C-alpha cells in the first residue's frame, strides 16, 4: 500500500505540479491586484479625501527628561524651555514680507535671512526648519508682539537641558546632545527619532533609559499644508525618572573651589559604603555648551586643549601611585612574613641594584629604619629591599587584592583599569621578564604601575573599613516623577582582604604617625582633635631624579605629581579623601594641605593652617 503512490508516479509528475503552482501564484497576485484596484480606484476618492482634507495626525509629545539631583534634592541638571523660530517651507507664501519683518528682531541682516530661507527649501517640504535656535527672552517677546500675516512661520518651544552649576561636577553629570546617526541606528527601534536629545557622556548617558521617560502623543487634525486645526485626543508623556546622587552640591562646590591647581583630581568617599561624596576632575568644561548645539569655536578650544578638559581624571587619569603604593608593599611583606615589625634596614640614602644606583628621596639617608619609620618618613631604600625580596608577581597579587589594575565598577563606563605589571605582562609586551631594578621601582609605586584616583580611594578605604574592597557608587536612588523610589543602591563589598590584625594595626598606626609625627611626610594635614591617617606620594614622570633644581626650574610636564590619600574612621561619619595634583610637586607639601581643608570642611572644623616648622 505504501508503495502504491510511488509506483504509479508518472515521469512528468513534477512538471504538472509546476503548472498547478504557477496557477496558484497567478491567482494570489491576481487577488492582490484586485484588492489594490479596489483600494486605489474604487474607494480611492474617499481615501484621497481623507488624505487631503482633514487628516488626523499623530503628534509626538516628547517627555520631559528626568532631573539629576544631589543628595539634598538640589538640581544638578534640569530642563528649561528654549525657543526657536522655524518655517515650514511648503507653507510659506510671502517671502519679501518674511524677510522684512523677521530679519530685524532676529538680528540677522536681510541677506542672511534670505539665505537661511533658501536653505530651508532643500529640506523636507512639510517639516519645520529652524531659522534661529535658542532665542533670548527679549527676542521672544519682540517676536510674540509681531503676529503677522506671514504663513508658515512658527515660534517653537522645546526643552533645553540646563546645568545650574556650570562646570561643577561636569564629568560626572556629563552632557546631552542631539542624537547622532550612529546612535539613531541603534536606538531608532526603541522610538528615538532624528532631532531627539540623548545623554552623550556621564550619568546622562549611563542612565539614559531612566532619564528619558515615555513619549506621549496627541491626535490633531491638520490641513493639507500641515497646519493644525484642532486637537482630538492626547495621551500625555510620562516624565523621566530623577537620579539622586550621593554627592552634596555645597560640599562638592567647596572642594572644586579649594582646588586651584591646573589639573588633577579629588575623590571623597564614604569608606564603609563606597558612596562618592565629591568627585573633582580639573580642568573641566561647562556642560551647558553641549546642550545648545555647540559652536565650532567652543568645540575646538575644548578639543585642542592640551590638558584635555573632557577627560574625567578621577576614573581615567592614570598616575603612578608613588609612595602611596608602599601601603600595599608593606602589607605584602608583612603577610608573606618577609618582615617583622622589628626588622630594620640601614638606609644610606641609596641602593645599588644590578649596577644601577637607586636613590632615596632623602639623600642624607634615614639610617636605621623599621617598617613603621619607613612608612612615616617614606624611606625609599627600605622598600627597595622589600621589592627585591617580594618580586613583581607577589606585589601584583597583593595590589590586585586592593582592587588595583582593574576598574572599580563605578557607574561610569569609561573607567580605565590602570596597570599592575607582572612577569607575564612584561614578557608579552616587551619579550623580557621584570628585572630586579624594576622590582625596586614597583615597590615604591613607580615604573610601569598606573592607578586612577578612584582606585586609590578604594584601596585606602580598605584600611578604614577592615579590609573591604567596596564598589564605589555615585547614584544613591532613582525616583519616579511621582516620588516613589524605584531603585536604591546598597553598598556592595567586592572582596574582603584577609589580614592579620597586628599587621593591619601596624600599618594603620604608621599612617596615623605620617600625619602626627614631626618627621611625618603628611604633617601638613594635621588637624588637632581629629585622628587622620594618611600616606603621601610624590610620583615621578621622568626617570632622572636631580635634587639640585628647584621645582620651579623644572618644566611643567616633568614635574612630579603630588598625591595624598587620607581617611578618618573614628568619627560617626567616616571619610576617605584622595587628592592628586598633576605636576603639582611634593605630595606632603602640595596635596596634604588641600586634603586638610576638605576634611575640616566635612567635619565643620576651622582650618588650623600649616604647622609651624
Amino acid at each position, binding site marked *: 500500500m*505504501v508503495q*502504491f*503512490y*510511488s509506483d*504509479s*508516479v508518472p515521469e512528468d*509528475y*513534477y*512538471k504538472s*505540479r*509546476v*503548472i498547478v*503552482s*504557477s496557477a496558484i*501564484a*497567478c491567482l*494570489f*497576485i491576481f487577488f*492582490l*491586484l484586485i*484588492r*489594490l*484596484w479596489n*483600494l*486605489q*480606484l474604487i*474607494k*480611492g*476618492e*474617499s*481615501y*484621497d479625501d*481623507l*488624505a*487631503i482634507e482633514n*487628516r*488626523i*495626525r*499623530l503628534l509626538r509629545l516628547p517627555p520631559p527628561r528626568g532631573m539629576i539631583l544631589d543628595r539634598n534634592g538640589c538640581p544638578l541638571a534640569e530642563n528649561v524651555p528654549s525657543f526657536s523660530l522655524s518655517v515650514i517651507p511648503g507653507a510659506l507664501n510671502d517671502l519679501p514680507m518674511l524677510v522684512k519683518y523677521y530679519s530685524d528682531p532676529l538680528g540677522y541682516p536681510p541677506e542672511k535671512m534670505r539665505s537661511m530661507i533658501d536653505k530651508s527649501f532643500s*529640506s*523636507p*517640504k*512639510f*517639516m519645520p526648519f529652524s531659522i534661529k535656535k535658542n532665542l533670548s527672552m527679549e527676542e521672544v517677546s519682540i517676536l510674540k508682539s509681531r503676529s503677522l500675516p506671514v504663513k508658515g512661520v512658527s515660534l517653537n518651544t522645546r526643552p533645553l537641558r540646563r546645568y545650574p552649576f556650570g562646570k561643577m561636577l561636569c564629568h560626572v553629570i556629563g552632557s546631552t546632545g542631539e542624537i547622532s*546617526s550612529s546612535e*539613531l*541606528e*541603534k536606538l531608532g*527601534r*526603541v522610538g528615538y*527619532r*532624528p*532631532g531627539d536629545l540623548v545623554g552623550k557622556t556621564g550619568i546622562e548617558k549611563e542612565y539614559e533609559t531612566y532619564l528619558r521617560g515615555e513619549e506621549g*502623543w496627541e*491626535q490633531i487634525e491638520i490641513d*493639507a499644508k*500641515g497646519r493644525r486645526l484642532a486637537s482630538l*485626543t492626547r*495621551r500625555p508623556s510620562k516624565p523621566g525618572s530623577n537620579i539622586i546622587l550621593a554627592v552634596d552640591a555645597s560640599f562638592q562646590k567647596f572642594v572644586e573651589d579649594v582646588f586651584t591647581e591646573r589639573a588633577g583630581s579629588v575623590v571623597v568617599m564614604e569608606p564603609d559604603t563606597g558612596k562618592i561624596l565629591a568627585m573633582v576632575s580639573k580642568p573641566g568644561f561647562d556642560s551647558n555648551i553641549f546642550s545648545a548645539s555647540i559652536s565650532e569655536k567652543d568645540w575646538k578650544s575644548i578639543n585642542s586643549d592640551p590638558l584635555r578638559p573632557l577627560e574625567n581624571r578621577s576614573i581615567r587619569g592614570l598616575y603612578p601611585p608613588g609612595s602611596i603604593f608602599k601601603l600595599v608593599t608593606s602589607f605584602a611583606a608583612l603577610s608573606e612574613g618577609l618582615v617583622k615589625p622589628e626588622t630594620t634596614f640601614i638606609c644610606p640614602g641609596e641602593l645599588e641594584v644590578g649596577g644601577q644606583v637607586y636613590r632615596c628621596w632623602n639623600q642624607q639617608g634615614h639610617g636605621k629604619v623599621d617598617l613603621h619609620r619607613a612608612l612615616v618618613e617614606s624611606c625609599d631604600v627600605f622598600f627597595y629591599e622589600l621589592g627585591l625580596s617580594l618580586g613583581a608577581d607577589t606585589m601584583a597579587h597583593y595590589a590586585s587584592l586592593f582592587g588595583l589594575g582593574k576598574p572599580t565598577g563605578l557607574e561610569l563606563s569609561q573607567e580605565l583599569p590602570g596597570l599592575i605589571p607582572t612577569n607575564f605582562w612584561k614578557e608579552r609586551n616587551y619579550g623580557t621578564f621584570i628585572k630586579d631594578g624594576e622590582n625596586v621601582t614597583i615597590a615604591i609605586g613607580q615604573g610601569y604601575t598606573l592607578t586612577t584616583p578612584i582606585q586609590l580611594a578604594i584601596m585606602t578605604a580598605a584600611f578604614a573599613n577592615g579590609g573591604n574592597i567596596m564598589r564605589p557608587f555615585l547614584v544613591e536612588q532613582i525616583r519616579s516623577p511621582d516620588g516613589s523610589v524605584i531603585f536604591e543602591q546598597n553598598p556592595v563589598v567586592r572582596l574582603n582582604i584577609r589580614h592579620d590584625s597586628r599587621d593591619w594595626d601596624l600599618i594603620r598606626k604608621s599612617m596615623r604617625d605620617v600625619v602626627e609625627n614631626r618627621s611625618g611626610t603628611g604633617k601638613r594635614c594635621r588637624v588637632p582633635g581629629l585622628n587622620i591617617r594618611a600616606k603621601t606620594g610624590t610620583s615621578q614622570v621622568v626617570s632622572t631624579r636631580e635634587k639640585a633644581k628647584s621645582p620651579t626650574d623644572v618644566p611643567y610636564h616633568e614635574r612630579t605629581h603630588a598625591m595624598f590619600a587620607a581617611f578618618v574612621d573614628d568619627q560617626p561619619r567616616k571619610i576617605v579623601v584622595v587628592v592628586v595634583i598633576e605636576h603639582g610637586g611634593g605630595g606632603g607639601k602640595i596635596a596634604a594641605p588641600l586634603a586638610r581643608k576638605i576634611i575640616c570642611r566635612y567635619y565643620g572644623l576651622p582650618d588650623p593652617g600649616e604647622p609651624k616648622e
Partner: protein
Amino acid sequence: MGTSYLGSVFKSSLSQFEWFLPLNAIVLSLAGIALIYSATIPMGPTGKSFVIKQTAWLSMGLVLLALFAFLDYRMLERWGTWIFVILLLALISVSVFGRVTAGSRRWIDLGLMRFQPSEFAKLAVVIVLARSLSERKRGAIDGWMELLRNVAYALIPAFLVATQPDLGTAVVLILVAFSMILFVGLSKKLWKVIFGLALASIPILYFGAQYFLLDYQKKRLLTFLNPDHDPLGAGYQIIQSQIAIGSGGMFGKGFLKGTQNQLMFLPVKHTDFIFAVLSEEWGFLGSSLVLILFLIFMLRGLGIASRSRDDFGTLLSIGCVSIIFWHVTVNVSMVMGVLPVVGVPLSFLSYGGSSLLSSFMCTAVLASVSSRRFSYLT
C-alpha cells in the same frame, strides 16, 4: 586541450546563463532604492545614510549573485547538512548573545556589519528540505514519520526565530516548508487525518494564542480584526497605510510628492511599509507593475524548476520561488490590511541588508539551476 575544453564549458555556461531573473531582481532593487530615498527624505540628513547603505548592500548582492550563479547548485546538496547546522548554531547564538533592538534579539554583530541569521535561515531550510525530499522516490508523502521529519526541518528553526521574537520570519519559514511539502504532495490518508486534526486544534490555538503571544503580537492580531478599535496605537499603521495606498489613485501623487509619506504619517515605511510609499506616489500603475514584475520572476523561477536536470534542482527552485512568493504575498496583504501586521519585509524593495542579500541568494540559486539544466554541463 585542457584549456579549450574548460573554455568551451565556460562559454556554454555563459551562453546558458540565466540573464532574465537577475535583471528582474536588479530592476526591483533599484525601484526599492528610489522608494527608500523618498521614504527617508522627511527624516532629514540622517535619512541619506539609509539610501547609501542599501546601495552598498545591492552591490554586495550583485557580487554574491555573480559568485553563486556560476557555482554548481549540487554543491548545496553535499553541504546541505552543514549549512543547516551552522544556521541553527547562528540562531541559537543570536538568542544567547545577539544585540537587542526594540526588545528583540535578531542581530549578530560582525563589527563591520550586523546580520540577521533568521533571514538566511529560510534558504538553509529550503536546501535541507530539497535534499531530503529529492532523496526519496518521487510521489506523494505517505508515511507519518517521513512527514514529521520534513516538518521538523522547518519547525526547529522557526521556533528559534519566533523566540527572538520575529514572528514574521517564522511564519514565512513555515509557509515555505509547507509549500515544498505540498509540492511533493501528500497521500489521501494523510490529508484526512490532517484535516481532522486542524478542525480539532482551532479551540486549542485560540486559547494557546492568549497565553503564548506577546502583548504586541496580540495587539496586532486584535487590531487586524478591527483596526478602528485602537486607531492611534496598533491600528494606526494599518489605517494610515490604507489611506496612503487609497489616495494614490491611478497615477499616484508623483515621486517625492506623497503627502502621507512626506508628512511622516507612515511609520516604518522604508522597511515593512515600503509598498505603501510605492502605491501613494506611483499609483495603481506603479504598484501593479511591481506586482507583475514579481509574478514574472516567480513564473520564470517555476519554469526553471520544471526544466531542472534533477529533482534536487526542481525542489530547490520551488523553495526559492516560494520564499519570494510568501514575502510578497504576506507583505503586500499586510500593507493593504488583508493580513495582520507581522513584520515581513518586501523582497528586493524593503530597506535591510540581510533581506536584500537573502533575496539575491535565492536569485543566484535559481540562476545556477537554470544554467545547468543540460546534463552535459559539468
